């Protein structure tokens, strides 16, 4: 018994670099050997809700997609963007992109270049990228009032009046749905407060896991129709879109979030095991007064 106690205490005072190594291995192995770590993905009610909302939109509906994330949060949100564009383009829905973050421009450009060609979608006819404007909520409010007061040209410098799909769009009321891909401020909250709630436009969001606690009251209140929470939410939505497109005869490869779920699962398991180990050591050292924990 004493030996076991000593082992736990020794483990409890392990070097933090050993923990870093464990976490790295837990992420690396599923990435290197994905076939050994295939996990089924079951959609949560929130992801299902997002899918259902988008799926009920009719052909030629107009959807505004707002890109409010950058490279640091790209692994969590970009898969949602790709799956969303697959879903929208497969239903022949027109996509209007804006960015409330400067980095969002690049994310939008990359997402469109990854998906648009597959569905033979043409810029200016099927999708348009209006680009970034500074101002956060003021931009959202401006779009709600009159898009042309905020944007006179698109991202490529084209006059927006010369863009075919912009002709019958004056403000957000002319759109059928808004989707915010958000990693912080300004983001989904601002869309709810300054556009979607006052104007009654339905919206959904794909956000980082850490943001879910901030957004969930709006979801519970039905001001946001479903939420894709972090990479797991993106993986669930990817799965739903993939199933739906398979049924329509469109082949879509597994998305990045689905592929990365095994790595995230393993990392979570390692962290939980470390927490349990840390608590056992804490319990054993508490009475003896010894100091356990990472050095």
């Amino acid at each position: 018994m004493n030996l076991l106690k000593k082992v736990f205490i020794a483990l409890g005072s392990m070097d933090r670099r050993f923990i870093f190594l464990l976490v790295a291995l837990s992420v690396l192995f599923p990435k290197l050997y994905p076939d050994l770590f295939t996990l089924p993905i079951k959609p949560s009610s929130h992801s299902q809700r997002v899918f259902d909302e988008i799926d009920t939109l009719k052909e030629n509906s107009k959807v505004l997609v707002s890109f409010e994330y950058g490279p640091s949060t790209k692994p969590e949100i970009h898969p949602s963007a790709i799956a969303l564009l697959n879903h929208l383009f497969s239903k022949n829905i027109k996509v209007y992109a804006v960015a409330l973050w400067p980095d969002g421009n690049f994310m939008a450009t990359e997402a469109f270049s990854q998906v648009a060609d597959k569905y033979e979608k043409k810029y200016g006819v099927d999708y348009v990228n209006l680009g970034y404007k500074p101002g956060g909520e003021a931009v959202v409010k401006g779009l709600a009032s009159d898009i042309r007061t905020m944007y006179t040209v698109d991202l490529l410098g084209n006059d927006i009046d010369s863009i075919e799909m912009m002709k019958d769009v004056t403000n957000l009321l002319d759109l059928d749905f808004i989707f915010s891909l958000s990693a912080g401020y300004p983001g989904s909250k601002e869309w709810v407060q300054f556009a979607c709630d006052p104007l009654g436009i339905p919206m959904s969001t794909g956000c980082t896991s850490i943001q879910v606690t901030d957004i969930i009251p709006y979801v519970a209140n039905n001001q946001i129709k479903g939420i894709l929470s972090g990479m797991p939410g993106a993986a669930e939505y990817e799965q739903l879109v993939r199933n739906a497109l398979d049924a329509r005869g469109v082949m879509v490869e597994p998305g990045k979030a689905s592929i990365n779920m095994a790595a995230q699962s393993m990392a979570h398991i390692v962290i939980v095991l470390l927490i349990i180990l840390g608590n056992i050591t804490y319990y054993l050292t508490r009475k003896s007064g010894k100091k356990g924990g990472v050095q």
Partner: protein
Amino acid sequence: MFLKRQMPVIIAISVGLFILFGHFINIAPVQQFVNNDATQWFDIIASFAIFLGALNMLKLQVLKVVKKQRNWQYSILAIVGFAFAIFAGFFFRGANYITLSDIDPNNVNQLVEYISTVQEVKDTALMVKGIESSLASYEIPKIFISKSSAEDFAILVSGLAKNVTLGVKPWGAHVQIEGSLFSWMFFKIFTPLSSTMFALLAFFVASASYRAFRIRNFEATLLLVAGIILMIGRVPIGEFIPWWVVSTLIVFGIGALIAPMIPDKKILFGLIVTGIVLSSVLGIIFDWSLAINTPGILSIPNISEWIFDYPTAAGSRAIMIGIALGIIATSFRIILGIERPF
């Protein structure tokens, strides 16, 4: 003194009150100001703020280098990075493109072959189709950073079409177009650096949770249990945790709660064992191993969703209402000139 002290207060009070009461005045010019002009003013000021922020950052970094303050060497990197971004954004477009007119239909495959030498072609058939539908005028889907590389490629493909035209993307658009110098900087330097910084969080979170998540008291235990449930429940592996593990953990949890009320440890032990046996028997009778029969409370993903939907939503709402009240109070203080953060 008036311009420095009183004037900003007068502007803040008058604009603040006008915007606030403007929402309740149904006169077209007032509504126009509140909904359009004021937001455009904000937009213009925000654009200036970015400019001022950049200048301020540059000033601080230069001063750090000049005065050789602590870690001044890193500031050189910041200044060089800043200068490079300014160069790529304002002085060098690096976004040359080539347009082919009147392409000979027999040369389409050859053209795709040439394109594949400078650009990854994911779907050859799709590209062939795209070129065939735009034989009159086709823009090569590759942006060349230098003019000379564009010219070299233009010479290579010159025999495939009647006219080969070289162009440069307009100012402004060049920062967004994939393949330009600015986009190269963003995707090849900024993106990996930014991702690396964020990825490091995983290691620190692991180390920090190992040290900080301790069962010290009731609140800490609640936090720990909720954290673990969310960590496991939000990933697919949570689906694999069988009902009997969850039911046993619930019985242990109840046992821990009632332990202080039962001084006799034998009775406590008996109650826990009875609970485990009872839940196991119920599980076997009602066949909880089938996902459709499993009660929601015995599924980790369901519990994690419940935590998000109820306790988290309630807590977040309380915080939001508190923040909103604080914002109202602060706004009033600013509008009335009591507080002057400007």
